[in-house]
C-alpha cells in the first residue's frame, strides 16, 4: 500500500512541476502510477486536486489494492460529478446578487464568473460589465469575447483605470484560484489592487468559487504565497519587459477586503469559510 502511495506522490509531484502557467490546472488520476491517465474537468490547482486524492489514501492500510483502487475510482467519479453540480449551485445562488441595471467590474478572465454571468444573461437580467485588460496576459479580451456572445454590453479598460471607473461600478466580481485558511483569496495578479480600490470606494467585492478550492495555507503577506516560477508565455506581446511579473502571476487578497464569497454552499463571509474548513 505504501508503495502505491509513494508512486502517487512521485507522479503528482511530477505533474505539479510540469504545470502550465495557470495556477488552475487539470488534476490527473493514476492507476498504475506510471503516467497521468485521465484528465478531469476541474479548475482546481494541482495541489488541491492531488491533496484531495492523497487524503483518500489515508485509509489504505487494511484494504487490498483492488478495494483501494475501487474506492479511489468511486471518489474520482463523485468528484467530477460534484464539480459540475457545484457550478450549477453557484450560478443559482449568485445570480440573485445581480440586480437589474447593475454595472459589474470583473478582472481578467475567470471561468466560474463566466458561468454566473451566463446564468444571469439567460434569466434576462439587464446588466453591463467592465473588464480589466489584465496585462501582460491580456486575458481580459477573452472575457470581452465571451460576453459579446451573450449579448451583454461590455467595456474593456486598462488596469490603471480601475480607480477611475470605481465610482460607476455597483459591484466587483472575481473568481479565485484558491481560498486560504483565513478566508483570503489567491487570484490572478491585480485582484488585490482592485480589492483595495473597492474597499476605499465602499463597493462590494465578491468572489465566486467552489468549496474544493479551499487550501490549508495561512499567508501573512504577499511574499508568503509561494509558487513555482511560472513564466509568462514568451509569445505574449511585451512579456520580456516584465521581469518581475514573470515570476508571480497571482497575488493574495486579505479577508478584510472581501465582502463575501459565493460558493456551492451558499453565500459565505470569509470567517464563514474558516468555520467550514474547521468542521
Amino acid at each position, binding site marked *: 500500500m505504501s508503495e502505491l502511495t509513494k508512486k502517487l506522490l512521485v507522479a503528482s509531484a511530477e505533474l505539479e512541476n510540469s504545470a502550465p502557467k495557470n495556477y488552475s490546472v487539470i488534476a490527473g488520476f493514476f492507476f498504475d502510477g506510471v503516467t497521468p491517465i485521465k484528465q478531469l474537468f476541474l479548475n482546481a490547482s494541482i495541489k488541491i486536486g492531488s491533496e484531495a486524492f492523497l487524503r483518500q489514501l489515508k485509509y489504505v492500510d487494511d484494504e487490498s489494492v483492488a478495494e483501494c483502487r475501487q474506492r479511489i475510482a468511486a471518489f474520482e467519479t463523485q468528484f467530477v460529478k460534484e464539480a459540475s453540480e457545484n457550478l450549477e449551485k453557484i450560478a443559482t445562488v449568485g445570480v440573485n446578487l445581480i440586480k437589474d441595471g447593475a454595472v459589474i467590474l470583473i478582472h481578467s478572465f475567470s471561468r466560474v464568473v463566466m458561468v454566473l454571468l451566463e446564468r444571469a444573461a439567460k434569466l434576462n437580467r439587464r446588466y453591463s460589465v467592465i473588464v480589466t485588460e489584465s496585462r501582460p496576459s491580456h486575458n481580459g479580451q477573452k472575457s470581452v469575447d465571451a460576453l459579446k456572445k451573450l449579448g451583454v454590453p461590455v467595456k474593456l479598460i486598462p488596469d490603471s483605470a480601475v480607480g477611475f471607473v470605481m465610482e460607476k461600478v455597483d459591484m466587483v466580481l472575481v473568481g479565485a484560484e484558491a481560498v486560504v*485558511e*483565513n*478566508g483570503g483569496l489567491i487570484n490572478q495578479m491585480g485582484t488585490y489592487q482592485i480589492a483595495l480600490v473597492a474597499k476605499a470606494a465602499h463597493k462590494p467585492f465578491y468572489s465566486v468559487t467552489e468549496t474544493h478550492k479551499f487550501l*490549508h495555507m*495561512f499567508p*501573512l*503577506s504577499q511574499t508568503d504565497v509561494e509558487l513555482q516560477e511560472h513564466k509568462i508565455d514568451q509569445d505574449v506581446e511585451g512579456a520580456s519587459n516584465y521581469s518581475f511579473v514573470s515570476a508571480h502571476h497571482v497575488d493574495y487578497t486579505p*479577508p478584510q477586503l472581501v465582502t463575501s464569497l459565493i460558493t456551492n454552499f451558499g453565500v459565505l463571509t*470569509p*470567517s464563514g469559510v*474558516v*468555520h467550514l474548513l*474547521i*468542521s
Partner: protein
Amino acid sequence: MVHPAIITLGVQFSEFIISGGIARCSAMLYAFKKVIADYVTPPGTSIQRNLTSYLGKQIDYLTTTRHLAETMKSAIRQLKSEISNISLDKSDEDTKTHLLHWIDTFIKEKIVSADDSIVATALKFIKTDDVILTFGRSAAVELLLLEAKNLNYKFKVIVCDARPKLEGKILVQNLVNAGISCSYVLVNSLGAVMPKVTKLILGASALLSNGALLSRTGTAIAAMMAHDAHVPVIVLAELIKFSELVQLDSFVWNEIVLPSVLTPPSNDANSKPPILKDWRDIPDLKLLNLHYDITPASFISMVISEHGCIPSSSVLSIIGMVKAEEEKNLKKLII
C-alpha cells in the same frame, strides 16, 4: 480544612511569585496532586462523591488569594468532570491513582505537548532576517524564540516592556544568554521601532469568544501599533486558554493590583522627593493599576494553538469544537 500545599500556593499567587497562565495552572495541578494523595474519605461517604466538594473548598480559598486564570478554570472543569466519571465501585486507592495519573496526562497533553505543537507551527512563520517584536514575557513566545535559535534560524528580537511590572527584562536576559540578538524598548518607543518590525508575536492569558485577547496591560498598545503599520500580529495560545466569555473592553472586568508600585521610585541622588510620594493624602487622586487589557480581534492576524493556525474570528468555532469534545467525555460513563 485547607491543605498546606494550597496555602503555600495562595501566597505564591498573591505575591506574584508564580504568575502567567501556564505556570499557575501547572503549579495548581501539582498542588492538587498532593491534596488528592493526602485525602482521607470521611466515614459515611465515598471518595467519588466527597472529593469534588473537598477540592471545591481548596479552590474557594485560592480564589480569595487571586482570581483564577482561564487555564486554571479549564483544568478544574475537566478534573471535576473526570472525578464524576469514576465508577463508584473503584476503591479509594485506585481512584487516587487514577486521578493522579489523569493529572499527569493532562499536564503532558494540554500543556507540554500543546506548547511543542504551537512552537512547531509557529516556526514555519519565522523567515530569515525577521525582526520579531514581542511584548512583556510570555512563556510560549520564549519557548518559540529559544527553539528557533536552537535550529539556527537567523532573526532578531525586540522586546517591548512596560512599567510597573517590567517582566520583559527577564525575557531579554534569557534570550541574550541563548545568543539571540535583542533590543529592549518601552511602549513609548514603539512608534520609532515599528518600521523595522516584520512581525509581532504575543502570548495570552485568555482568548475570548469574540476573538479578543486578554493579556498583560500594554499588549493592546503593541497590537494596535503593529496593526496600524501593517505588521502581522500572531498570538500563541494553548486550547486551555480559550474561554467562553466575551469582553468588549478592558474595564468591564479586570484585576486591580497594588497602586503603590505606580509611584516612581525615589532617586537618592535627587534632592526633590518624587511627586506622587503622598498620593494617598490627595483627596481627589486615585492610582489605578490594572493587570490585564483587551486587544480587539481586528488587530490580531492569526492565533496559533495546538489545533493549528486560525484567524481570530474563528476562535468561537474552536471553542465549540472543544466543548463538544468535553461533553463527549462527560457522557461516556453516563450510559
